[in-house]
């Protein structure tokens, strides 16, 4: 009797201790609401710094839905667990973060908890923002608090049970949220460390470019080996990069700053938004990011370099393969070659497809997306335009074309299941184009960029 009672007590004790532990892990206190700070009370220099940081962090692009106010949230982000809608981070007191004191904002950035103490889905990449310094959090807060408030209530997330139970996120954090995943490396230059700070932190490159595990966390052992964003494949940006021509610091800097590169093409999909933002931050920060990222690619092996030079040589003097038979060849010759095999250089001439990462990548989705929706013009600014072939080509035609492009312009093994890929891409692109905030800035010939 006593034993069972003891056991019972022990079980109860464990249960209670467990519950307490769970509670301790899960529960976060609410932080008292504060009145929104008067915008004039915030130091303009701090606000200005915050603007550049917000651009680096790409905040506006997740927190803005096409056709709605900046930072008012509502963008649907598809995840394997359901669709999460971004939140309103304007200083609106009712529907935004207007009543958040600075401490609440910093807590959200660092540990993914909102003012009321609820856990935030890691779709908000606080596993990266944990690396952001206190000073930078302060600047970001000042910047956000001086944006125009927008009354836009949150859209309900479409997440199925059990993932809609937020307390589970606490478990996720226990497993995957590390405090400060990055430390400066004394052996490296200040520029390198600055790049690392930005990449691992605010710029959160790994959030797209690193593969995730079954629980949706980045796989640290496969850092930058390729990932997902909005039905686009974010290429591997480490040694497994599929780019025909290897990336180096100079090329990365040019690309990130201008949104295109003659040996690689034009940034598309979510990356177009990223480079659009990076064109407005201090140039030194873009250089730093390029330097650090180049180190992840690593210096190319001699063999890799040789293959890259070959690709460039082939691109520069393409041999017209008029002998090619087959539907794919005919479609390419008729619909693509007019822009992709001219003397007109990128970004306004189509890139020679021998240099395309989309065609060389193991993942065919980006190519499918691009063929379907092309490249849209940016309002009032010089920018490349590619027509989308979604209305004129059916799935079978695009699949046949992609097969041909893969065979002719890459050294990779043939893709499979292309018709299905294209059908899914058609659906995914429709949503992406409808809801994502448009590019504000444009890739352009840098010699023309600052001209009227």
């Amino acid at each position, binding site marked *: 009797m006593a034993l069972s009672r003891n056991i019972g007590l022990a079980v109860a004790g464990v249960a209670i201790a467990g519950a307490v532990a769970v509670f301790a892990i899960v529960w976060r206190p609410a932080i008292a609401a504060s009145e929104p700070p008067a915008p004039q009370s915030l130091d303009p220099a701090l606000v200005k710094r915050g603007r550049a940081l917000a651009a680096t962090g790409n905040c506006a692009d997740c927190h803005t839905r096409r056709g709605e106010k900046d930072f008012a949230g509502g963008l649907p982000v598809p995840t394997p667990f359901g669709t999460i809608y971004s939140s309103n981070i304007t200083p609106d007191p009712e529907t935004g973060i207007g009543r958040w004191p600075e401490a609440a904002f910093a807590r959200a950035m660092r540990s993914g908890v909102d003012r009321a103490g609820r856990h935030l889905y890691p779709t908000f990449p606080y596993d990266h923002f944990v690396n952001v310094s206190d000073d930078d959090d302060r600047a970001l807060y000042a910047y956000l608090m001086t944006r125009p408030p927008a009354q836009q209530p949150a859209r309900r997330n479409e997440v199925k049970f059990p993932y809609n139970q937020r307390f589970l996120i606490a478990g996720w954090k226990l497993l995957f949220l590390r405090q400060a995943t990055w430390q400066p490396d004394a052996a490296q230059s200040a520029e390198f460390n600055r790049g690392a700070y930005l990449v691992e932190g605010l710029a959160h490159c790994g959030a797209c470019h690193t593969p995730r595990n079954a629980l949706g966390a980045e796989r640290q052992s496969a850092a930058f080996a390729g990932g997902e964003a909005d039905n686009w494949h974010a290429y591997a940006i480490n040694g497994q990069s599929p780019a025909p021509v290897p990336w180096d610091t100079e090329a990365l800097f040019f690309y990130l700053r201008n949104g295109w590169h003659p040996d690689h093409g034009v940034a598309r999909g979510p990356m177009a938004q990223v480079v659009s933002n990076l064109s407005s931050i201090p140039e030194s920060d873009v250089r730093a990011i390029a330097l650090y990222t180049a180190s992840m690619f690593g210096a190319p092996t001699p063999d890799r370099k040789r293959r890259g030079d070959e690709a460039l040589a082939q691109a520069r003097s393409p041999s017209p393969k008029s002998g090619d038979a087959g539907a794919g060849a*005919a479609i390419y010759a*008729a*619909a693509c070659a007019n822009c992709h095999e001219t003397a007109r250089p990128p970004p306004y001439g189509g890139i020679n497809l021998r240099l395309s990462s989309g065609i060389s990548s193991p993942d065919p989705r980006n190519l499918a997306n691009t063929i379907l929706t092309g490249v849209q013009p940016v309002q009032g600014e010089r920018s490349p*335009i*590619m027509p989308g072939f979604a*209305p*004129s080509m059916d799935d079978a035609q695009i699949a046949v074309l992609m097969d041909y492009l893969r065979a002719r312009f890459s050294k990779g093994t043939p893709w499979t299941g292309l018709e299905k890929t294209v059908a899914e891409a058609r659906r995914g692109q429709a949503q992406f184009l409808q809801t994502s905030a448009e590019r504000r800035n444009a890739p352009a010939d840098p010699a023309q960029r600052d001209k009227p």
Partner: protein
Amino acid sequence: MMTLKVNGRDHGVEAEPDTPLLYVLREELQLNAAKFGCGLGQCGACTVIVDGKAVLSCVTPVLLLEGKQVTTLEGLGSLEAAAPIQRAFMEEQAAQCGYCIPGMMMQAQALLQRNSRPTDAEVRGALQLNLCRCGTHMRILRAVHRAAALMRTADASMGERSAQ
């Protein structure tokens, strides 16, 4: 030699398969509405409808169109029997030089065929690919909304008739 279905009829087309649809329409089929504006897929003056979707005919080689239904402005209606979109554009006097207008109308028609009650934002979004240099945009928008109303009224009256 391929068969192209245009405006409900089959046509034997002699042009080479890589010929953009635009030239086949204008030259072989002698249809005027789809226009050459750029040949680069940048201005929309060449817009026609293929299987219900608006397509830029200047960058669409005919080899893609086997078995598909192509509709041009001429296929929607005529002076004697004007389609709602044509009536609407005439009633709104939505043209200055008029060169971009057929492309606008076809793009709008494709929109209205799938969305009978578009918002102003949806109409503007659908016409994003189409350029107008004369500045007729306001009238074009009004004409599209008018066409939508005309189409809804036509549907309603057809529904009434069939209900009787």
